[in-house]
């Protein structure tokens, strides 16, 4: 099986990275015309790995070629979706993969300044990345006249201050500008009006980390690793009640069931599976009978959930769904920026109801109320955080209705635990 990213893990020092063939993709890209690079990425069917799955080449092509104003690349390393830890591995174990990807993307779009927006909690990892950037500068891979092509690129690391919403691209831009981290109304989109009002590309860490391989081995090769509309492989961060939680790289379209049972070793202590949150906390939960699904953007959508960031959270029979509901709703209530009425008020209201249920003060009709609140938030706000908060609530309330109703009725947890 061909892997794109994980084989580079451990090659942190630039010597090691280069010995393994690092920076060849960037060199090749810079020998090509920018348009050819974009064409190659389009051919690769690379889709944004942050969660939305937007085709990367297409996103780049929205940025005006000729701009009187500077263009910027913002690298989204604000990995905040609960369950997600894939970018952390790249940043920590193969930082040059990201730097190389940033060079390729910047060359393709005509960018001379890039920022890595890294979540504040990744403090030590930011130091590793900064060291790698220093190494790249020292070798002339960043700075002026990269590879003697006349192309220059500066790469800066910016630490976030602990807001999930800053992983949303326009909130990230606002935060980077030194403002309060809250999403902007679109249009205009960052491609035309982004950082400091200039054309801006925002790409996820994992997305960029795929670029060196695409450049070196070609877009068609990359596309062939995956399925029809999603090229390449995907990093899956498996957590929860499995025997071997961790990071797994699988081709797009691999089976979720196989990821859990063949790779992550199945459910711990051979308990029964209760549910899988397949793409980060905002993705609708799947019941055990629903996990024979292919892990790619379109198949997951068809299954009524999403691939998201590839954070697979596995719950076994000891999991209390009221508790799951409480943890998830509390997270979104805490992370809503508070700008839009439905999200600010709705996330908090849902969290309070979930808290009440878990405390044995649930009321009849709470599940319908929760679903109604969730539906009233969806599609009504500036950014997708409200949807992210609403979707899992609706799914949990519908799929685990009996258990939750029992919890409300009996005023205690019906799940047996040793």
């Amino acid at each position: 099986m061909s892997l794109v990213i994980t084989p580079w893990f451990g090659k942190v020092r630039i010597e090691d990275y280069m010995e393994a063939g690092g920076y060849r993709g960037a060199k090749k890209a810079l020998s090509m015309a920018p348009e050819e690079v974009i064409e190659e990425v389009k051919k690769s069917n690379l889709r944004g790995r942050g969660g939305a799955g937007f085709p990367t080449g297409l996103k780049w092509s929205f940025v005006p070629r000729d701009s009187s104003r500077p263009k910027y690349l913002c690298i989204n390393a604000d990995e905040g979706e609960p369950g997600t830890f894939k970018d952390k591995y790249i940043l920590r174990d193969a930082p040059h993969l990201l730097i190389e990807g940033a060079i390729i993307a910047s060359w393709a779009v005509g960018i001379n300044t890039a920022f890595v927006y890294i979540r504040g909690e990744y403090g030590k990892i930011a130091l590793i990345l900064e060291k790698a950037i220093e190494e790249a500068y020292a070798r002339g891979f960043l700075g002026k006249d990269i590879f003697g092509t006349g192309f220059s690129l500066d790469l800066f690391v910016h630490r976030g201050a602990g807001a999930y919403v800053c992983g949303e691209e326009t909130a990230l831009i606002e935060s980077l500008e030194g403002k309060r981290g809250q999403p902007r109304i679109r249009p205009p989109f960052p491609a035309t009006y982004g950082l400091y009002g200039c054309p801006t590309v925002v790409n996820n860490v994992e997305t960029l980390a795929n670029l060196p391989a695409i450049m070196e081995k070609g877009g068609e090769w990359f596309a062939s690793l995956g399925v029809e509309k999603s090229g390449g492989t995907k990093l899956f961060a498996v957590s929860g009640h499995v025997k071997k939680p961790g990071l797994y790289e699988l081709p797009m379209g691999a089976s979720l069931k196989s990821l859990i049972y063949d790779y992550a070793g199945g459910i711990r202590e051979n308990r029964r599976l209760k549910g899988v949150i397949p793409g980060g906390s905002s993705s609708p939960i799947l019941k055990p009978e629903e996990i024979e699904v292919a892990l790619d953007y379109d198949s997951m959508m068809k299954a009524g959930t999403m691939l998201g960031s590839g954070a697979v959270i596995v719950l076994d029979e000891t999991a209390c769904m009221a508790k799951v509901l409480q943890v998830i709703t509390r997270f979104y209530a805490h992370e809503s920026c508070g700008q839009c009425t439905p999200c600010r008020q709705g996330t908090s209201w849902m969290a309070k109801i979930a808290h009440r249920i878990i405390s044995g003060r649930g009321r009849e009709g709470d599940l319908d109320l929760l679903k109604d609140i969730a539906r009233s938030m969806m599609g009504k706000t500036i950014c997708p955080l409200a949807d992210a908060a609403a979707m899992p609530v609706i799914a949990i309330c519908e799929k685990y209705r009996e258990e939750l109703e029992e919890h409300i009725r009996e005023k205690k947890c019906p799940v047996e635990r040793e």
Partner: protein
Amino acid sequence: MPGGKRVKIIVDGREVEVEQGTLLIKAAEEAGVYIPRLCYHEGLRPDGNCRMCLVEVEGLRKPVPACMTPVRDGMVVKTNTPALKEHRRKVLEFILTTHPMDCPICDQAGECVLQDYYFQYDLEDRRYFEDRERKPKKVHWGKNLIYDAERCILCRRCVRFLDHVTKTGELGVFERGIQSYIGLFDGKKIENNYSGNLVDLCPVGAITDLDFRFKMRVWFLDRTPSVCPLCARGCNIEIHTNTDPLTNRFSSQRVFRIKPRKNMDVNRWWICDEGRYSYKFIDQNRITRPLIKGKEASWDAVSRKLREIIGREVRVYLSAWMSNEELIYWKKLGELLQWKLSLLRRPDGDQDDLLRVADKNPNTTGARILGLEEGGGNEEVAVVFHFPSPGEHKMKIGIFTNAFEGMEDWDMVLPAATFAEKEGHWTNFQGRVQKFQQALEPLGESLEEGKIGEKFAEAFGIEFPWKREEMEKEFLKEMKKWSGR
């Protein structure tokens, strides 16, 4: 974008032609469709945060905020579908979950957008049974502003006003999500000259006015259109009064507040704090009876006393606070009686690039149109309007609204009505003639300056009655000559 391209759109089946780029929320108004809104205010940059104004646009997957969506030619918009009505109810419900229902003691009651919208669009029972959020209350923001974060719906009008209109930036949003509140940045107080506008902008009772707080229920107030006299801009205002003893427990306060009245050519939506809070002279420290040598006297006594000046040299110091009508009346009276005329003005003060102009008089332009200039002489008798500062004269007759130090030394002090107690016009610094209406009866025995002029005419035995409308016409004739000069 004046003179821009016109485009046609259809709002709820009504076709309307508007300028390209007009925001949908305004365009709909032109089509006669009101889209409910909380955070939108036409004088501020739209922010799209309250989500109340979402509308459906044909061809778009999701509803869009009408306050942030510029019209395009051929746009077909629906503002009142069942889904949108439901959405609006939900937005109101969301807000009311944490809004304290303290309407009975809230100053905003009666002019609260939340009350009105709940009545109009929601009227549903409560489904929220959780604890309310505890947030800062009674926060002093400086000057007359009191902030209650629990009542606040976080529309951020106040923040945007200070960011983009006054550009002083004292406020920001602090914390996140349901914990969000509006707060002062470290070391800041709101001390700019336009702070009172925040009270008007706040759609709920989150920002209240220390000057007005708990003094009067707004539905007991009478509202009279007027013009602010405190500088030459002549901002359009409303005077809010209550003289009904049944509902006004303050025996001597008649004016309770001044509010701006929108006029896009003069003051747009705003007024400055000086204009807003200087109304107290209307009720306080007034001269309510004529004084002769410091002793209260009747108007009859005044009439008798006035005969003493027949045949003597008189200089009349008119004031730039008098209306166009009063000025021309007194000018004509002065010409009939061969008096010398000059003008008194409040000295120039500070100005800014928003509203305040340096000339602190409402009618300098009107006086100039009539050829009145500052200056003086040493005539025996002086008749002085409003400003107790003429030169050397043997006999001084003052016509004043408010008491001042040393007025006992004047030969006569005659009580004049304030601008709130009479009707007339001022000509502002732009040459715009603006009408102020009578909100109150003149206090005590005070009289408008035209009527006082009549007393002079009677004493001198000439027929020259005070007819305001006639004087208004006379003034406009003069103005025509002046503008054609």
